[in-house]
């Protein structure tokens, strides 16, 4: 259902949610927006967080021999691009990965729709910024909050003023003119295996892993034994030890590994799950120290190659 709430009413909703959940939110620290415990909605920053908060569902590093019961958490202020990442991950890991699934089921995300396009972002190309799937989706207009609540969390809004939701669709339309979507249709067939861009990217890349670590859709991990623990840790498909077999990594060249990353996002996932594994957040571009731009992979003219 759709609602419209005042600031005070939103605080009351926050308080009600915080009874059932441990509340986290985007907060500013030394000019950096990070996630931390919050005790009121007023503390929550509307600015985009410095990183996609995927550790709420996939921890950077954890022992996988035990699955402890998880706390119920509510995360306020996640942006649509980052939340969309979880819906894409769901297609691959939900109900397969017990750790992810346990946390996913117990985490409530309250996504804040960006009021204006961010520099470099291209979420409109992948169904943003107003999402079709959400727990509670919020769009502020002055002192009022437009809210879309999913059935599961609709109860927190009972008694508040209903809204027809047209503000969201109008806003999304306007946003899409300000951030014209890139031409992604058919990308899975257009992209070229032998394009020279892979080698050009590789000539710059220093294998830092930033594109993977920053990506709201990257879910791959490494598994290793550590004493009496078996750990998994976020991994990077750019590294040569990734998916190593007895013969080493079957993609021995850095250009091949970079291509694999983009093929996974724009070809394999699309063909198997019917979605591109990218939310247009632009985080991999921002964190890349050598300016490798995923948008170039989308807009590159492959026809002459």
């Amino acid at each position, binding site marked *: 259902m759709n609602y419209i709430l005042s600031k005070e009413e939103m605080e009351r909703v926050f308080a009600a949610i915080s009874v059932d959940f441990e509340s986290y939110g985007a907060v500013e620290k030394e000019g*950096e927006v990070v996630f931390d415990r919050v005790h009121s909605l007023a503390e929550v920053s509307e600015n985009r967080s410095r990183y996609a908060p995927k550790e709420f569902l996939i921890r950077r590093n954890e022992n996988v021999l035990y699955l402890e019961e998880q706390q119920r958490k509510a995360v306020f202020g996640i942006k649509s691009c980052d939340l969309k990442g979880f819906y894409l991950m769901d297609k691959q890991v939900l109900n397969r990965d017990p750790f992810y699934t346990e946390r996913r089921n117990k985490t409530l995300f309250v996504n804040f729709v960006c009021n204006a396009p961010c520099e470099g972002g291209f979420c409109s190309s992948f169904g943003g910024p107003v999402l079709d799937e959400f727990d509670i989706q919020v769009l502020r207009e002055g002192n009022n909050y437009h809210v879309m609540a999913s059935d599961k969390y609709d109860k927190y809004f009972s008694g508040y003023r209903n809204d027809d939701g047209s503000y969201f669709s109008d806003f999304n339309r306007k946003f899409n003119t300000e951030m014209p979507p890139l031409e992604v249709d058919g990308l899975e067939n257009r992209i070229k295996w032998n394009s020279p861009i892979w080698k050009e990217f590789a000539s710059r890349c220093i294998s830092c892993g930033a594109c993977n670590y920053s990506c709201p859709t990257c879910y791959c991990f490494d598994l290793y034994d550590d004493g009496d623990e078996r750990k998994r840790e976020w991994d*990077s498909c750019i590294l040569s030890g990734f998916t190593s077999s007895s013969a080493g990594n079957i993609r021995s060249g850095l250009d091949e590994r970079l291509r694999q990353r983009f093929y996974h996002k724009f070809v394999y996932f699309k063909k198997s799950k019917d979605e591109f594994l990218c939310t247009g957040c632009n985080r991999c571009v921002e*964190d890349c120290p050598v300016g490798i731009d995923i948008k170039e992979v989308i807009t590159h003219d492959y026809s002459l190659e």
Partner: protein
Amino acid sequence: MVSVLTVCPYCGTGCQIVVNDEGTEERVIGYSRSPVNEGKLCIKGYSGLSYNFSRDRLKYPMINRDGEFVRVSWKEALDETADRLLEIINEYGPDSIAFQASAKCTNEENYLMQKIARLVGTNNVDHCARSCHSPTALGLITTLGAGAATGSIESLAAARTYFVIGSNTTEQHPIIGTKLVTERKKGKNLVVADPRKTQLAELATIHLQFNPGTDIALLNSMMYVILEEHLEDEKFISDRTEGFQEFRKAIDKHSPEITEGITGIRPEELRRAARLIARDRPTSILYAMGITQHIHGTENVMSVSNLALLTGNIGVRGSGIFPLRGQNNVQGSSDMGVLSEWYPGYVPVDSPKVERFEKLWNKRLPRNKGLALSEMFDAAAEGRVKAIYVMGENPLVTEASVSDVETAIHNLKLFVVQDIFMTLTAGEADIVLPASTSLEKEGTFTNTERRIQKVNPVYPSPGEAKPDWWILNEIGKRISGIKGYESPRDIFEEIRQAIPGYAGATYDNIYPIGKQWPINEENPAGTEILHTKTFPLGRAKFVPVVYAPPAESVDEKYDMIMTTGRNYFHYHSGTMSRRADILERESPEPYVEINAVDAKRLGIRNSQAVTVESRHGTIRTKARITEKVPPGIVFVPFHYDESRVNRLVGKQVDKLSKIPEFKVVAVRVFA
């Protein structure tokens, strides 16, 4: 969940990181407001911090009793360390003990260690900068008056040409390297002089793949060309330098046609490179261990300085000399005076200025040169040094000629090691003191561009581990009569009095993004570019240097040249990086890089176990066939204690700075 802003514990770039901690599951992000890394990190920053939680961490003080380490209380460990040190001092005098500080520890800790050493009466205090940038300190102090990078990392973007000599920047200082990569892609000139085909060499406008150890021949030839073609900056030379005429005479013998036989570089290539550097200014000159780790290390540095002066590439944004510091705090630890010939702030031990410290510390201080790191173990072997106290160093892996280090340690009456892990070196100690990591303590690091940055604790220390400053403070109280410090801030306040360049820095004003020294009354905001109007010496000095061959050369038996260094995934003796699982997975074992031509000639296949033998020792390792090294040259990283390449490195040192020649070793390789 907490978020703490601190500094990456790896290389000297000094990237600022924000660590989000929830238990032991850290997330690391680059601090986007940092002028150093602008939010970017390399793989060591992202995936290198898990050593902090390794089960191998030292948690309790231990004393070796009859060949076995026994857990003891802090009081017992500290008392015994102090008592035994005092006994040795009383019996053999203060110069019978030696201290090894660490460029991985904070400024406060290094300052404290040298103060303790000097208060007990010895200048035998030195650290790993001896093995990396002691030639820089000495060389640039001689020519310019300050042994530090002249510009900022940010200012690199203003250059039109980059000259990188002896630095594999994208692997060793990755975030600085990426700035060069990005600028090169925008069309800037990049000249790389390196025997290996590094990533930057692949991208370079010109790659001068010269023979190891022939740097001066190469640099002098460049300057020969610049003078021959009148590309020198006459105004800069006449207004701001001295010694030009004498220098010019030394250059005359180095025409590229003559040096080709030494360097292996074709004259026309060298001419093109020299023209770019001199003409398309400003030019930033970056160097690292490829320049310093030679028996002519100091002269190499001075030669680099000559080139910058000749082309007027100093004092302007985008120009300058950038000695890239290997460890997080090499600049700072050197500033703090944990070098046997300098008091804090590079006051020579034999200068009248030492009085400044005698007043500050209220004690008469030693004025004789102490033992350099490379000399301490020899002195121990000869019985002149009876006790060595090591903080956060692993000389059994990192020193040249490590088998002699082993012998020397066994000859000591007391060997104390303060570390975060039971390293190969700590395993030989009489007393082991467990220290906190830089993610567990407060203090400051000074990065490669002189930026003093605040280090903040993210995690609690494991077990009874304590910050190095706390341990030193306790030892200092017992042996040197200091009254003791309350906190790192307390020590920093004294550093501000001791070192004029640090006078204006406070814990408050260096947070969050740090300040570059000198920061004082004249430069309250710090100093981004040094030498804009004048040099600390007044006029900068040209120092004539003439090429002489490296200590080792090939012969019929040892027919290849080995160079040593780091790789991208590991750091120093690997105690940290090899306990970070992703890093260790990426580079799990020692290897020797060898060209396919040599491999074929020697019948060696990729990944085959081979022996590398020098005149000093032998190791077994795996062959890695690669085009990165040219025929005749092999490269071995020094991170691996299971195959210590420093067994192969001889003891020849630069007579000026006493740095060993880690970069040129004659070897033979066989299956």
